[in-house]
């Protein structure tokens, strides 16, 4: 258990509405990541953070923004949700203590945009 929680776990929203997903970690990891998982695509990186207020884009960042004001929280925002953003979203942290290259995942948030 990497001490990662995600909220909400499920959300249904309408096209055009803003949505914020939260990732919370309890073990003071520096690196945090947001991925999305879709059938036929595998997991793809949206954004990541390498410290408080330090973030960078991944391969599928269009339509998403992130913020990290505290070490323990990494927020993913869809400013105006579209149906193509219906997906399962996973947060991950990079491990430490000899597992510096490994990423550990949270339980996921299933988002449906109608």
């Amino acid at each position, binding site marked *: 258990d990497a001490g990662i929680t995600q909220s909400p776990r499920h959300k249904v929203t309408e096209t055009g509405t803003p949505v914020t997903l939260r990732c919370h970690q309890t073990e003071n990891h520096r*690196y945090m*990541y947001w991925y999305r998982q879709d059938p*036929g*695509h*595998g*997991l*793809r*990186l949206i954004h*990541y953070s*390498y410290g408080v207020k330090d973030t*960078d884009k*991944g*391969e599928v960042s269009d339509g998403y923004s992130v913020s990290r004001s505290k070490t323990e929280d990494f927020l993913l925002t869809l400013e105006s949700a579209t149906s193509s953003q219906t997906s399962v979203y*996973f947060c991950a942290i990079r491990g430490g203590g000899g*597992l510096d*290259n*490994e*990423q*550990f*995942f*949270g*339980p*996921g948030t299933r988002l449906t945009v109608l």
Partner: protein
Amino acid sequence: EDQVTQSPEALRLQEGESSSLNCSYTVSGLRGLFWYRQDPGKGPEFLFTLYSAGEEKEKERLKATLTKKESFLHITAPKPEDSATYLCAFSNFGNEKLTFGTGTRLTIIP
């Protein structure tokens, strides 16, 4: 272009019937090759990291191996609780992301 392909997409085995899952990759500057297990409705669970050709890692009925172009996840005498989707991924130097394959869905029939 860096990419990873997993095969087969799905595999059904009888309990006790050993087999292997394949992960073929093309990457410049491999930092690590990772295997994860994912159960329905849950996040990926880390299994192994392999760093160089010839390396092997084992955990219970699972053994992961690595060559310069492929990684295999060998499952010996599987049990129904080994049923899951197995994902492989790699990271390369100078890049924070993991590049994932689409997974092999393994079903072990009692």
